[in-house]
């Protein structure tokens, strides 16, 4: 008897998306990263197809809006975004930095030039490829995304976040300055597909889109997100090219759920880390190519676990 192995019945392939540009490509990143490219289920195949999932570390230009469980570790550096970024890059070595320009969510925000300065200072502070999240307010979106796009021109960042009612300014800035876009839909495969079609119609190329199917925290709807990611991946492998983009997942509420907030003093930090890892590692198993965390100590164990799932030693069959 020979050859009991995984069954592959797939015809589709996930597209590749490149984030970050080196000097050679007109940017200043030390390297670029590629996600996607899979031709089978996540981690399946020894070695698997496509590219290893990556871990992004999330931070914000407004620490007041950031969970205490995350900022506690960073101390006073949180008040200087560039310093925070440099520290995280050096100490925790994420694959990517995801900067939330949360200050744009403040009421009547109008300091557009400050956005440009923040982005420039962050580009100085790290050579890692970047994901940058802009505003969520039609009144300022156009100016904000224009400014981010311009400040990061040539760096091939991943720019967020496009939603069904809110995608033109993001797409326009991405196309004008050579960036890619995060397309977020509310845990619904059909809405994810629809948004990708809308973005395509703006002229954005499919290899410039990362799908964000929205991720509920562990115990707070995570299972819906997990299955939507599995369904998106399944449909893409079955040949649906409107869903064949790599996915990004961030359980953004992980550090504010009751279990983390109410954990005993000594248990608070391990619980925060566990709540991120027990959602984000499953997210990669469901198909996410980038997973995001806010607790700095989640980064290393998550990278180790992903590497262990990825690097199979061929042992002569299975």
């Amino acid at each position, binding site marked *: *008897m*020979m*050859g*009991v*192995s*995984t*069954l592959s019945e797939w015809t589709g392939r996930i597209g590749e998306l490149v984030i970050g540009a080196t000097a050679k490509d007109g940017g200043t990143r030390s390297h670029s990263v590629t996600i996607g490219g899979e031709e089978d289920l996540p*981690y*399946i*195949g*020894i070695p*698997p197809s496509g590219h290893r999932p990556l871990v992004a570390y999330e931070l914000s230009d407004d620490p007041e809006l950031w969970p205490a469980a995350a900022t506690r570790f960073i101390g006073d550096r949180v008040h200087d975004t560039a310093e925070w970024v440099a520290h995280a890059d050096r100490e925790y070595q994420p694959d990517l930095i995801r900067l939330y320009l949360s200050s744009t*969510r403040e*009421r009547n925000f109008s300091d557009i030039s400050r956005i440009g300065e923040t982005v420039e200072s962050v580009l100085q502070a790290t050579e890692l490829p970047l994901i940058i999240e802009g505003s969520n307010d039609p009144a300022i979106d156009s100016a904000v995304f224009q400014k981010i796009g311009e400040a990061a021109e040539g760096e091939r960042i991943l720019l967020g976040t496009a939603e069904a009612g809110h995608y033109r300014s993001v797409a326009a800035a991405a196309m004008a300055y050579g960036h890619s876009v995060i397309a977020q839909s*509310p845990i619904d495969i059909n809405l994810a597909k629809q948004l990708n079609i809308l973005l395509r119609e703006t002229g954005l190329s499919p290899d410039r889109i990362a799908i964000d199917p929205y991720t*509920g925290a*562990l*115990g*707070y*709807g*995570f*299972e*819906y997100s*997990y*299955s939507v990611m*599995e*369904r998106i991946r*399944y*449909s893409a492998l079955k040949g649906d090219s409107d869903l064949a983009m790599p996915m990004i997942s961030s359980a953004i*509420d992980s550090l*504010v*759920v*009751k*279990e983390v*907030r109410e*954990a005993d003093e000594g*248990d608070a930090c*391990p*619980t925060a*880390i*566990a*709540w991120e*890892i*027990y*959602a984000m*590692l*499953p997210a990669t*198993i*469901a198909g996410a190519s980038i997973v995001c965390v806010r607790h700095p100590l989640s980064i290393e*164990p998550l990278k180790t*676990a992903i590497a*262990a*799932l*990825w*690097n*199979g*030693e061929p*042992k*002569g*069959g299975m």
Partner: protein
Amino acid sequence: MANQKEECDHMALKPLEIYKLLPKKNCKECGDPTCLTFAMKLAGGKAKPEACPYLDENAKTILGASTRPPVRKIRIGVGERAVTIGEELVQFRHEKSFFHEPGIFMAVTDLMTPGAIQERVIFVRDEILTRVGTDLRLNGIAVRSVNGSPTAFTKAVEAVEAVADLPEVLMAGDPAVMEAGLSVCGNYRPLLHAATSSQYWEMCRLAKKYACPLAIRADSLDALAELSGLCSAEGIENLVLDLSSLSLSEQLNRSTAVRQHAVSRKTPALGHPVCIDTAVSGLPDAALIAGVTKFGSVLICDDLSSASRKALLVLRQNIYTDPQKPIQITPGLYRVGSPGKDAPVLLTVNFSLTFFTLQGYLEASRVPCFMLIVDTEGLSVLTAVASGKLQETLVRDAIAKYNLSAEVAHKRLIIPGYAAPLSGRIEDATGWKVLVGPRDAADISEFLEKEWKG
């Protein structure tokens, strides 16, 4: 949802395929008027092939296999904490659902003192995490033979049995050691771990003698399928496939292959639940996560931190929730803190994700308030508004039913941002003034601070 059904159909034979295997005599001896109606019942799992006295051997084999669940159902332990595993039908939970949660077994060894063993056993016996009205707990104890002597193993099993009636996994490669353990707990249906090609007949003899399920191990899936067949030939059908590996990649690839071969019925010898000793890889959290998400039914772990245990139990609950059924919260008036007569009232739907998310942010805001939860049959705000399930009459009736006027001294209602199109109609129907809240629960704290002036 249309292609969801399609995805399920490869699981079993269709009625016409079954009909072709029947004698087509319409003799009625099975109790059905025609062979076709019998075929339809077989396809739906509502009849057994044995009811037909005229099936040939080929048909019996095919039909017998296709009406059995593709992953065998197995019970470990006895009494109220007994664990049922297997009986799974699908590869992806969205195709239907996963049915039997994996049993999580915490390991003790025969090198530990009886006191240390019992401390761990009592922890597994008593520790409960209650979430969404459900008690989540670890399931049982795995006893590892490390010392190698039958006497040491007996003592360890005795220490476990002295304090709890929990399901057990007896982990000993030496049949003589295994038998020593069985002499203590053989009547309580432990899982025997594990038979290999070099001693399987001995392990099968013990499994038969004590009527216990048996785990089997081999170096490759081919060898495992072969060993499964050998054990079946010895009369042991309640088999569990051990896929523990030094390599997590191999664990995930193997468990996926096993589930694919089981549900497609390509390799019936692999149609058994999977066991993973998560200590083997050296990355227990990752092995547990891969085991819970991808087809583990028996998960063995050494000591678990409190944080990992909680996250693991919640992940298991999430993955084994029926995906077709939105989890609902009982509609009603809920209090956050101790709200007074001036406290804000926030309307939302009874989709549990919405409820818990909003509740979490309200608690964090430290503003005591009321949550008025209306029955949208578990739909989210967005869907409930779009489908017309969330209507002004629903809000009006809820205000009356939960006697809101007696609870607060004002008539101001905060509604979700996505329900903004209903604000006028809600005001007209209820006579309450409507404040449109944020779309994102994360912004509720800021909203209350700025917009709510009681």
